[in-house]
């Protein structure tokens, strides 16, 4: 068999992080290659490198025999790379056929496309994919699964030789997945190669020929799907032993401070859980499992359809974040820059912002108290800065995160929700954040920690609750902690077996 795509020694670094470390793998003509790995393993970075969305630092990519040291999106498209992203890129108000040929020239006049020709060719493509929808339908009338098909059709009319599909099954209902598989198989029969990215391991066995595993930005192994088991795959994905980088803490876990009862909302979402004083409860799950959504409901930013959130024995009908903060629930959001800090303002402005009302009299801020709060938290959280008058945007990621935590702590919050507390933070600062979290629970606060970092989850949590598609798929107590256990629950494998 001939190789249609070769990735050769590709490296990509972001400040502080090596996203891809000397990665090499290849795709053969007419095969379906699965690409798997934990969150942050480098899968999306590698597909972005192949599709030209980012510039890799070194190495090269060979597409259909031609070697590229640098790729732009248009170069990649011309070379025959098509991508179906998780977030679909369609124009909702245009018809299917117009979307399929968006940006393409149909007929001699670029400003006046020949719609008959467009329709004929669209129908032709849809037929080869075995789909029967009127190509004049507006895209906004379609289901997500159908929109995905339009994306695939878009790639097909551009004569793509390698189609990259980023978690195509994540956004569509189970019943439609088989249908999508059928289309992918048809493409394969036509000689198109497919790189299929998925968290659902069982799918690979049904659809794919070979599987490539990534871990921590490195290539681990490529195997034929026929001679490998799920357990092997999980072992490859995890690979390493847990290193002892998590400080020991000595916190007393006592009564329940937060209880979530039958919380429902946003379609298929139903959660029960309890958080105790002095506890770090880890919340695991894949992207889209509903973890961030749960956090936003608890902190009052998203309204649940039904169910109760009980804080210290009192039901909270949180109308807004203001109410939640009033009850002592503080969120350290995942999106630090856009939701956590006020980047353009100084440290001394940011830290007291949540406590301003408490330290004001007749609306006037007591600036002495504000400065006290600032200096206390700059000192105890060891925020490294030449001055509290420094604008937060000039701080490193780790110190920005500390400012967010300081802001939440200064408001006397008892329950802290950390959404991806160490994302984008370098190793040293990570350690400091962990110690800080330990100190907080030792002081009797409670932490709900959402994390996609497996080590962090296992190292920091007292208990782990795993979500899968909006529901609790399992709970692990400390003695039962294992990466395989979490991964099984997160991918929904265990549920299916049971």
């Amino acid at each position, binding site marked *: 068999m001939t190789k249609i795509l070769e990735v050769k020694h590709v490296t990509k670094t972001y400040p502080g992080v090596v996203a891809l470390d000397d990665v090499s793998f290849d795709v053969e003509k007419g095969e379906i290659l699965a690409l798997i790995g934990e969150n942050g393993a480098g899968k999306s970075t590698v597909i972005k490198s192949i599709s030209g969305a980012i510039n890799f630092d070194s190495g090269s990519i060979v597409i259909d025999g031609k070697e590229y040291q640098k790729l732009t999106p248009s170069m990649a498209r011309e070379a025959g790379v098509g991508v179906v992203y998780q977030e679909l890129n369609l124009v909702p108000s245009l018809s299917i056929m117009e979307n399929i040929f968006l940006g393409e020239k149909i007929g001699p006049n670029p400003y006046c496309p020949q719609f008959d020709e467009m329709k004929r060719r669209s129908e032709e493509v849809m037929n080869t994919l075995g789909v029967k929808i009127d190509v004049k339908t507006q895209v906004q009338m379609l289901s997500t699964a159908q929109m995905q098909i339009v994306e695939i059709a878009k790639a097909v009319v551009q004569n793509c030789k390698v189609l990259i599909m980023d978690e195509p099954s994540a956004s569509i209902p189970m019943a439609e997945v088989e249908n999508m598989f059928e289309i992918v198989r048809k493409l394969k029969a036509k000689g198109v190669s497919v790189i299929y990215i998925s968290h659902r391991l069982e799918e690979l066995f049904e659809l794919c020929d070979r599987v490539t595993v990534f871990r921590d930005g490195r290539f681990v192994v490529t195997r034929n799907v026929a001679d490998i088991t799920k357990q092997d795959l999980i072992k490859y994905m995890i690979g390493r032993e847990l290193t002892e980088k998590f400080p020991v803490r000595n916190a007393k876990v006592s009564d329940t401070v937060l209880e979530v009862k039958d919380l429902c909302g946003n379609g298929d979402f139903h959660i029960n859980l309890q958080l105790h004083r002095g506890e770090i409860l880890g919340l695991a799950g894949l992207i889209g499992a509903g973890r961030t959504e749960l956090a936003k409901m608890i902190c009052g930013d998203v309204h649940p359809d039904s169910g109760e959130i009980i804080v210290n024995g009192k039901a909270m009908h949180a109308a807004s*974040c203001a109410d939640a903060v009033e009850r002592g629930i503080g969120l350290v959001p995942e999106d630090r820059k*856009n939701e956590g800090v006020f980047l353009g*303002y100084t440290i001394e402005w940011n830290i007291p912002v949540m406590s301003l009302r408490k330290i004001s009299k007749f609306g006037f801020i007591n600036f002495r108290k504000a400065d006290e709060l600032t200096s206390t938290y700059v000192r105890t959280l060891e925020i490294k800065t030449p001055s509290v008058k420094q604008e937060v945007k000039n701080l490193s990621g780790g110190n920005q995160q500390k400012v967010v935590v300081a802001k939440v702590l200064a408001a006397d919050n008892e329950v802290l929700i950390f959404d991806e507390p160490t994302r984008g933070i370098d190793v040293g600062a990570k350690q400091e954040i962990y110690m800080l979290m330990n100190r907080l629970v030792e002081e009797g606060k409670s932490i709900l920690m959402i994390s996609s970092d497996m080590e962090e989850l296992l190292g920091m949590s007292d208990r782990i609750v795993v979500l899968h598609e909006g529901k609790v798929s399992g709970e692990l107590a400390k003695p039962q902690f294992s990466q395989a256990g979490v991964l099984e629950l997160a991918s929904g494998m265990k549920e299916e077996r049971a």
Partner: protein
Amino acid sequence: MNKVIDFCRRNLAWVLLVLIMIVFGMTTNNFFTTANILNILNQNAYLIICTYGIALIMMSGGLDMAVGYQMSICGVLAALMLTKLGLPTPLVVIVTILISVAFGALGTLLEHLLQLPRIFVSIGLSTVYQGIAYVITNSKTISGLPDGFKEIGQGTILHPSLTYATLMMVIGGIIMSFIMDKTYFGRYVFALGGNEAAARLAGINVKRMKYAIGCIAGFFCGIGSVILTARVGAAAASTAAGTEITILTGVLVGGVSVRGGDGKIANCIAGVLIMGLLANGMQLAGLNTYYQYIAKGSIMLVVMWFDAFQMKRRALAANKRKES
């Protein structure tokens, strides 16, 4: 030296204002007389009072283009209440201000109902206000206002050129500066302008804040329209048309970013005064209102360019500092 440069940069509007005044003082006689300075302040008092509200909206990240006709319609309503209904002056003043507050709140209400930025809502409202103002006045000027009412805009105190309006402007400015600098309300306004999502998650009641801001803006706009109507002694639908551009440009000259989250009330005052002085100077040079539109629009574009340029430079500087 660095301190001087830093001071100038932070108070750019005041520095510009002083420079312009010096130029005016050298080219015209009797510019630097108490009477003339007070006269300039008096001419711009209603604008500056309105500016307090608009600056508040802009600092919180919004933009309101309805002030002009909102002032017109309030002035017209006040005039009608005085002449047609014969209501007493104090009552008319209070009702006019309340109507303006309601208009301000209406802007926020629509902002929420339509889920649109204030600028779009206010452009729509502005056109509606314009239409109503013309309809209820029959496109005519309403004059013959009682002397007691005119006194509000023309009456003086202590000095023959120091009007009540100027005094109100100064007091309003002091109060607003205080609120912005010393109260949590002021901080919340900047929080909204700096990062609305973070403000919401930090437990700031964004909706309530926006209503408060809308109402305060309406309040100042109401006072402005009463003063304007009283000073002119008559009201027409076109009286305050175009003031929104003057105020907007003035606030931008005063260093408030179009993106919100920054600025000082005092600098906005200087910004609007600059606009007023330039208009005055152009008038003296024989350039009419239409030339002034060209000047105002150009200044606005230059200021926005400067704002964008500064933003980019600051972002670059931040990145560099982080790398090192």
